[in-house]
């Protein structure tokens, strides 16, 4: 068998791919659920933190900034391991899904907060003054005047961060979460062949390529709208 044939046999083996498919498909479902849960909770959490920060309550802002800085500095893998392996010692035990979800949500939350905050800061002061001068409260000004403009500016960086963080769902394999990577590497060990990993890679492309393309579309759409 030549080098090329060995390569095809090890990575593009049709029989083994078919055997691995059901396992990887199960992992696909888990990854999609996890990704959606992380995106929704992380983005909303970041938005709420940025809104709280705009009220300018000093001690609260220090907490938010400390949270955002720590979570952005820690590798997501470390957060997952801490939540999964260290938390049980405090009496709180999280399953693999919950630990991965919470870790990635906290990380996305921190990045999203910073992105939304930058967007809020980029809205000119005069917008606040005009709205407040007509009697709108702080919260109303934020909701109706500032956020609609801020969110528009934050779409491109936020899309990128959402993609980067949700790809981190693969880290769940470390705590035995049966998502795409974990399922495909078990299938690979079982078969003694790397082809399931190729199937896993295809599954990731199937999931994230549309998201990346959607992000690009959203980005251009908002770029010329400005």
């Amino acid at each position, binding site marked *: 068998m030549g080098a090329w044939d060995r390569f095809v046999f090890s990575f593009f083996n049709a029989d083994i791919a078919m055997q691995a498919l059901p396992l990887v498909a199960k992992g696909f479902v888990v990854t999609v659920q996890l990704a959606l849960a992380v995106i929704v909770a992380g983005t909303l959490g970041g938005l709420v933190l940025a809104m709280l920060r705009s009220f300018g309550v000093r001690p609260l802002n220090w907490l938010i900034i400390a949270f955002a800085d720590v979570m952005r500095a820690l590798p997501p893998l470390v957060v997952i391991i801490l939540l999964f392996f260290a938390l049980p010692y405090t009496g709180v035990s999280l399953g693999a899904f919950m630990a991965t979800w919470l870790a990635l949500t906290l990380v996305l939350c921190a990045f999203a907060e910073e992105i939304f905050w930058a967007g809020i800061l980029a809205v000119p002061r005069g917008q606040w*003054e*005009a*709205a407040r*001068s007509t*009697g*709108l409260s702080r919260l109303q000004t934020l909701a109706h*005047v500032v956020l609609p403009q801020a969110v528009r500016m934050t779409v491109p960086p936020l899309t990128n961060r959402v993609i980067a963080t949700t790809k981190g769902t693969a880290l769940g394999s470390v705590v035995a979460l049966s998502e795409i990577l974990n399922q495909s590497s078990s299938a690979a060990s079982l078969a003694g062949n790397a082809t399931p990993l190729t199937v896993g890679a295809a599954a990731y492309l199937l999931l994230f390529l549309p998201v990346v393309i959607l992000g690009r579309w959203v980005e251009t759409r908002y770029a010329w709208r400005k």
Partner: protein
Amino acid sequence: MSAILDIAGLHKSYGPNKVLQGIDLQVRENELVFVIGPSGSGKSTLLRCCNRLEEPDGGAIRVDGTDIMAPGTDVNRLRQKIGMVFQSFNLYPHMTALGNVTLALRRVQKLARAEADAKGIAALQRVGLGEKLAAYPNELSGGQQQRVGIARALALEPRIVLFDEPTSALDPELVGGVLKVMRELKDAGMTMVVVSHEMAFARAAADRVVFMDRGAIVEQGPPAEVFGAPRHERLREFLSRLDH
């Protein structure tokens, strides 16, 4: 006649910089008070204290009889009575002209959409923009944008409107339209305080001209006196610099 705006002993500092040093000013109903003075004299800060966009450090301000600094005062309700027009318009770029004008009607006065729209349309018609209801700010000229800004203030039916250099950001050929609207407002009996450098407008429309310098009112009187026979050296100096 009682004063709509009654300012007494107003002080405001930014750190060591004393911007307002004991301002006393009363504005009567239907009166147009025109505030002039060199830049940095505290004119804009004075206006911005009147609706608490800036917090005064000392003194008292009453609007329509209400002490705006009293602890129990609902600032948001009070601000409905005090319209403000800004140098840089500050229109909401993501809303149409009508949306800009009706936002506070709907969110603060809690009017139903139909009612708010009716008032908003009336306000925009009043400033000559009845045809531009659905236009976004970036589709309007500077002069039109400022007229939307005026309509936004008028829609709330304020007791007084404060103009903070309303024409300073406009190309010269667009100034006339804005001044015309202000003149019509004056003739309709609106109480106004105008900070501006449009001296010809002051001569024609103001009831009283107030000259400020270094955070204090130096001289005030009818435009004919202030411009024709200035008593203070600093005012004479200021006016002579404008002529050149």
